[in-house]
C-alpha cells in the first residue's frame, strides 16, 4: 500500500473516531453584529478532534468575523460557542487564548520590531515558556526558514516567512486547535504550497486539529477533510473537502471564478 493510501486510511479512521466523540469546537446558531449590522446570521459549525476543517467564501462573507467571534471580538450576541466542552461565548479574548486554542490572525500581525525568537517567546507566554527550548526546536524543524532568521526582526522578513512565523507563534502554546485566518493571503503559490504542506504534516503526524478560513478555495478544500461554504453571514453548504470540490455550484462560484 502506498504512503498516500495509508494517509487516506489514517484520515478515514480518524474521521470515524471523531464523529463518535463530541466536537472539539462547536459553533451553534451564532449571530454577531458590527453596530447594528448583522455580520453573522445564525452560523452552525463543528470541528472534530483531529480534523482539518476549511471555511471558504467570497470577500465580506463573514469568514474572518466568525473567526474573530470565536475569539470573543466581537462577542456573539446570540448562540453559543463551546470549546472542549467549555462555553467560551462570553469569555474575553485573552482568556480564550489560554484554553489551548491558538490563532494565526488575518494579516499575520507579527511583532515587527521584535526578533523571530522574541515573537515565538510571546507565543509561548500562555504556558509560561515551560518547554520553550523544545518547542523552538520543533518550529525550526517545521519551518527551517525561521531557524535561519531566528535573530532577525520580524518586520524585515518576506510575507511568506512572516506567515510561517505567525503560524509557529500560534503553535508555541501547544494548542489543541489551530485556527488559521487566510494564511495564503498575498503569498506566492510556491510559498502557499509549503505552508499548506506544513499544516497537513502537523495534522497527520501530531494529530493537530485545524480550522482554516480561506479565499483560496481550491487549496483549502484540497487540504481539508471537511469544508463549509459561507455566503453573506450564513453557512450555505457543507461536506467533505472532495465533495465540495466536485460540487458544481462551488466550482462555479469559487473555483472557476465568477458568478458571485
Amino acid at each position, binding site marked *: 500500500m502506498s504512503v498516500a493510501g495509508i494517509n487516506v486510511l489514517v484520515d478515514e479512521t480518524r474521521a470515524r473516531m471523531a464523529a463518535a466523540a463530541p466536537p472539539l469546537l462547536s459553533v451553534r446558531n451564532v449571530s454577531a453584529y458590527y453596530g447594528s449590522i448583522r455580520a453573522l446570521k445564525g452560523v452552525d459549525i463543528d470541528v472534530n478532534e483531529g480534523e482539518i476543517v476549511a471555511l471558504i467564501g467570497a470577500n465580506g462573507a463573514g469568514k474572518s468575523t466568525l473567526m474573530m467571534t470565536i475569539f470573543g471580538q466581537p462577542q456573539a450576541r446570540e448562540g453559543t460557542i463551546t470549546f472542549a466542552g467549555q462555553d467560551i461565548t462570553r469569555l474575553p479574548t*485573552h482568556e480564550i*487564548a489560554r484554553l489551548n486554542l491558538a490563532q494565526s490572525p488575518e494579516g499575520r500581525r507579527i*511583532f515587527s520590531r521584535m*526578533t523571530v*525568537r522574541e515573537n515565538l517567546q*510571546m*507565543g509561548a507566554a*500562555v504556558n509560561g515558556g515551560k518547554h520553550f527550548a523544545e518547542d523552538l526546536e520543533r518550529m525550526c524543524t517545521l519551518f527551517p526558514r525561521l531557524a535561519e532568521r531566528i535573530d532577525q526582526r520580524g518586520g524585515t522578513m518576506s510575507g511568506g516567512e512572516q506567515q510561517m512565523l505567525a503560524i509557529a507563534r500560534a503553535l508555541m502554546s501547544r494548542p489543541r486547535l489551530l485556527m488559521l485566518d487566510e494564511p495564503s493571503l498575498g503569498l506566492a503559490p510556491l510559498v502557499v504550497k509549503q505552508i499548506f504542506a506544513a499544516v497537513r504534516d502537523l495534522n497527520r503526524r501530531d494529530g493537530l486539529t485545524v480550522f482554516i478560513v480561506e479565499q483560496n478555495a481550491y487549496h483549502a478544500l484540497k487540504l481539508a477533510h471537511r469544508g463549509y461554504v459561507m455566503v453573506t453571514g450564513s453557512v450555505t453548504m457543507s461536506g467533505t473537502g472532495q465533495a465540495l470540490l466536485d460540487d458544481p455550484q462551488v466550482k462555479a462560484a469559487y473555483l472557476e471564478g465568477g458568478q458571485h
Partner: protein
Amino acid sequence: MANTSTLGPIAPAMTRPTGTAFPALLKDAALFALVTLGLSIPVVAYRTDLGQGTGLELTARWGLVASLCLAVFVLRLAQRLILGEVSRRRDARIRARADASAVAAPKALRPGRALGSLTLAVALTLPALAALGSGGLSEGRYWIDLGILILTYVMLGWGLNIVVGLAGLLDLGYVAFYAVGAYSYALLSTVFGLSFWICLPLAGLFAAAFGILLGFPVLRLRGDYLAIVTLAFGEIIRLVLINWVDFSGGSAGISSIPRASFFGIPFTKGEGGFADLFGLSFSPMHRVIFLYYLILVLALITNVVTLRMRRLPLGRAWEALREDEIACRSLGIDTTITKLTAFALGAMFAGFAGSFFAVRQGFVSPESFNFLESAIILAIVVLGGMGSQIGVVIAAIVMVGAPELLRNLGFLKAVFGQGFDPSEYRLLLFGLAMVAMMVWRPRGLISERHPSVRLSEAKR
C-alpha cells in the same frame, strides 16, 4: 542592490543624487545669495530713523546686506556639502549592511554599552570632577547642581520610557505623577512630620495609584485620543493643586518642607550633625553631594528595573503591546493588566523623582508642574530614541544642559550688542533641534532596539 557595478555608467548617478560637482554647488549657493540680496534690499538695506526735524531719515546698511548674503552663501554651501557627504555615507552603509549576512548584524550593534559605562563613570565621579575642575568643592557647586537637575530629568525620562517607549502609550500628562510625588512628600512631611525615607516609598505608591486611576479610563484609547486624555489629566492635577487651597496651599504652594537627612542624621552645623558625627569640618556641600548621589541611585534603580522588566514576560508583553494590541490579546496576554502596570510603574518612578524634587527644593508650587515640563520629558524620550536607555541620558544632557550652556555665552553680547540675552533663544533652539532631529534622525538619537534575548543567553 549589492551589485551596482553591473548596471554600468548609470549606477553611480543613481546612487549619489546629491554628490554633484563642486562648481554646481557654488552656482546653487550663489543663487541663494542672490535671492537673499533681492529680499533684503527692500527689508534690510535702509533703516528709517527719526531725523532732526519731523521727517524720517534713511540710513543705508549695505554692510549688513553684504554680510547676510555672505552668510546665506556659506551656509547653503556647507549644507549641500554636508548633506551630500551624509547621503554618500548612508549609501555606503546600506551597501555594507546588504553585503553582511543578516544574522551577523545584531552582534555588531553594541556601541551603547561602552558609552553607557563611560557615562556611568562620569556620573559616579562628578562631584570629584567638579571639585577638581573648579578648584574646590564649594566652587564646583554649580556643576553638581546641574548634575542633579540632569539626573532628575534622566530619571523622569526613564520612567516615561516605560510608558511611551516600551508600552507605546503616548502620555502627555506625565508631569502629573511628578506633582503627585512632590506634593505627597510635601504634605506628609509638613502635616504628619514623616521623614523623607518613609515618604519616598509612599510617594511612589500614591503616584502609582494615580497611574492606575488614569489608566482605567484610557484602556480603550490609542494614539491621538490617548494623548489628549493624558494631557487633560496632567492639567486637571495642576488645576486641582491651584484651586484646592485648603489642601495644597493653592498657587502659593507649600514651603519650608523638611530637608533630607543622612538616614536620620541631619546635615546641620554643630552637635549631632552629619559633619560632627563623621569628624568632618562642616560644609553645606555635604548635603548637596548627598542629594546628588541620592538622585543618582534613584535613577539607576529606575534603569535597572526597566532593563530587568524587559526580560520578564511582563516587560516583553509591554513591547508586544506597542507592536500590536490585537495580536497580544490573541496570544493570551491580558492587555488590561499590561497597560495598567505600565502606567503604574512609570508613574511610581515619577513619584520618587517628585518627592526628591520636593526635598531638594524645600518648596513646591503648581508652577513647577506645567505642561512644558511634560513636553520636555517627552521630548527627552523621543529625542533619545523611544525605548533606548542611553539615548534618554544623552537627550536629557542636551535638553537640560544646553539652556545652561546658553547662559554662559556672554561673549555673544560683544557680537550682537548689550541687549542680547542668549537664554531667551532657548525655545527657538529647542524647536530647531526638534526639526533637525525629525529630518535626520526621525527615530531618535539611538534608534536601534536591542533584542532582549540573543543566542548565547537562550542556550543557558
